[in-house]
């Protein structure tokens, strides 16, 4: 148990938490509860937009899991991870102004709203809601586990108590705060993340005697650690490149990112977000993964990769500072979890319940229901996270890929290709979703690449094929 570090860690989190609650009090004034709770009233500025994208995306896998793998694999894994910088500009540029214009015209609040208006089909709505719920559940479990692990390794509490503390904190503020609270705290968390990673990286370089000496140590231990090919030479160029799709361009289809691309105020904020987002993602990804690699000579023999970051922070920083710096990954995980929770809850309440079960529900009822479902979901994920697998990153990448395979074409083609229709969307979601699960189960690396590449290709063929061949049919 590291008392000082625990105190500063929890104080930092408490401050963030407090701001979230304060922000939630201002949300009650707006006319539309749905638009406000789930979308912050479509009024995000550039800095907040960039930060909320980064904080949502930069989750447990970039702060805990990823650096853990980098610790074992060396610079090759850093190479693979920094391509995520493309998410900083590409996602916003591609969805871009056309998406924001269309979403506003449709009065869309969620990604499913957009799909519903674009394709005018009940089946598109139900299928996409189903895929979101399935994949985001495991994504949330991954974040829960990351948060628990982090608190566990700092405080020395048991994993179960740590998890419980984490879950309660998140649940209280996301349930009452909604989207605006989440995006505001995202900005603070994003700022902590950047400063935190810079301090940590600098301290590690000093502790390791400079970059040259760290590199020399790595090379002496295993020359492969400083090549692009991974510790045992098994990271092939095509495998690494497939991550350009998985964590780079494919991110455009993640519902939690898509929803943010419709929440900005004007094109000025959009432009500013592009610039800030690129720089921020770049700094965070490069720093965190380098920290993982550089930790190796300083702290050899860490057995659970997920604990590399907290352990190295406690090793090279004074305890009080370690607590504050580690608030960064914890903040990242919390903000990802918040957004995912809101997303799944909005899928259930807005996309399924209001569309098909009870379209005339009163405003008050919708509000109670939104909050209740958000809270219940959190508890279910908590139960899943009690017996966790070790490598969070695997779970997370797994679910990211599934969502990308299902949604990339219905979203992107839905914006830019007039001929795309509901048959195409249904075909793309079904083939993307099922081929991805199938590949993962029996043949995870077709052509030496991550299976998301093949699934996205299959899903594209399905989308175009079904759109063109069935366009004149009336069902």
């Amino acid at each position, binding site marked *: 148990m590291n008392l000082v570090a625990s105190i500063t860690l929890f104080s930092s989190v408490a401050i963030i938490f407090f701001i979230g609650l304060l922000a939630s009090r201002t949300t009650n004034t707006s006319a539309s509860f749905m638009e406000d709770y789930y979308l912050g009233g479509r009024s995000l500025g550039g800095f907040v937009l960039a930060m909320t994208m980064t904080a949502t995306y930069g989750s447990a896998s970039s702060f805990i899991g990823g650096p853990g793998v980098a610790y074992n694999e060396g610079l090759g894994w850093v190479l693979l991870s920094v391509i995520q910088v493309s998410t900083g500009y590409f996602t916003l540029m591609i969805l871009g102004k056309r998406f924001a214009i269309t979403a506003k015209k449709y009065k869309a609040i969620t990604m499913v709203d957009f799909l519903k208006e674009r394709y005018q089909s009940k089946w598109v709505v139900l299928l996409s809601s189903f895929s979101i719920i399935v994949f985001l559940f495991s994504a949330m479990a991954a974040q829960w586990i990351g948060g628990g692990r982090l608190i566990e390794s700092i405080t020395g509490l048991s994993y179960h108590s740590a998890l419980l503390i984490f879950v309660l904190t998140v649940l209280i503020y996301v349930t009452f705060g909604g989207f605006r609270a989440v995006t505001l705290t995202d900005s603070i968390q994003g700022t902590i993340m950047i400063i935190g990673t810079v301090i940590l990286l600098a301290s590690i370089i000093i502790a390791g005697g*400079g970059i040259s000496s760290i590199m020399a140590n790595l090379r002496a231990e295993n*020359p*492969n650690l400083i090549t692009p090919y991974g510790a045992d030479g098994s990271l092939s160029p095509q495998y690494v490149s497939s991550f350009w799709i998985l964590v780079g361009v494919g991110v455009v289809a993640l519902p939690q990112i898509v929803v943010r691309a419709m929440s900005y105020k004007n*094109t000025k904020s959009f432009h500013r977000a592009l610039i800030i987002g690129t720089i921020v993602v770049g700094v965070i990804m490069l720093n965190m993964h380098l920290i993982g690699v550089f930790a190796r000579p300083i702290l050899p023999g860490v057995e659970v990769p997920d604990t590399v970051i907290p352990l190295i922070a406690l090793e090279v920083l004074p305890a009080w500072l370690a607590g504050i710096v580690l608030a960064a990954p914890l903040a990242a995980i919390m903000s990802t979890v918040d957004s995912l929770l809101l997303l799944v809850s909005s899928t259930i309440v807005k996309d399924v319940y209001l569309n098909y079960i009870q379209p005339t529900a009163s405003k008050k009822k919708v509000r109670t229901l939104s909050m209740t479902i958000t809270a219940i979901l959190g508890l279910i994920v908590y139960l899943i996270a009690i017996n966790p697998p070790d490598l969070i990153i695997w779970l997370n990448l797994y679910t990211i890929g599934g969502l990308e395979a299902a949604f990339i074409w219905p979203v992107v083609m839905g914006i830019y290709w007039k001929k795309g229709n509901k048959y195409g969307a249904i075909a793309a979601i079904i083939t993307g979703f099922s081929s991805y699960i199938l590949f993962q189960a029996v043949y995870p690396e077709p052509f030496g690449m991550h299976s998301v590449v093949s699934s996205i290709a299959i899903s594209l063929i399905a989308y175009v094929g079904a759109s063109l061949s069935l366009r004149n049919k009336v069902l």
Partner: protein
Amino acid sequence: MKEQDKNPIKIANREALIGVILVVFHFIWWFAFAYGLGKKEPAEYQYILGFPAWFFYSCIAGIIIMSILVFIIVKFFFTDLPFDDEEFEQS
């Protein structure tokens, strides 16, 4: 303003295309430096600021160049559109 006369859909399409070009350029830069310089034996690596040259160019310089490019492109090639405009919503 002159920009408002232009079709917003065309502007948006052009900007999305710029995004695609940027991301492809980024990929080529990243891949070519990483495997072009990184495929040598580790003993023959050159070092820049303590990092192996392949890593420095591919990852560190790559991020810096992309940030600068995004900055320039957004500042000079992206157009502000009226977003809250009522008549625009109907178009």
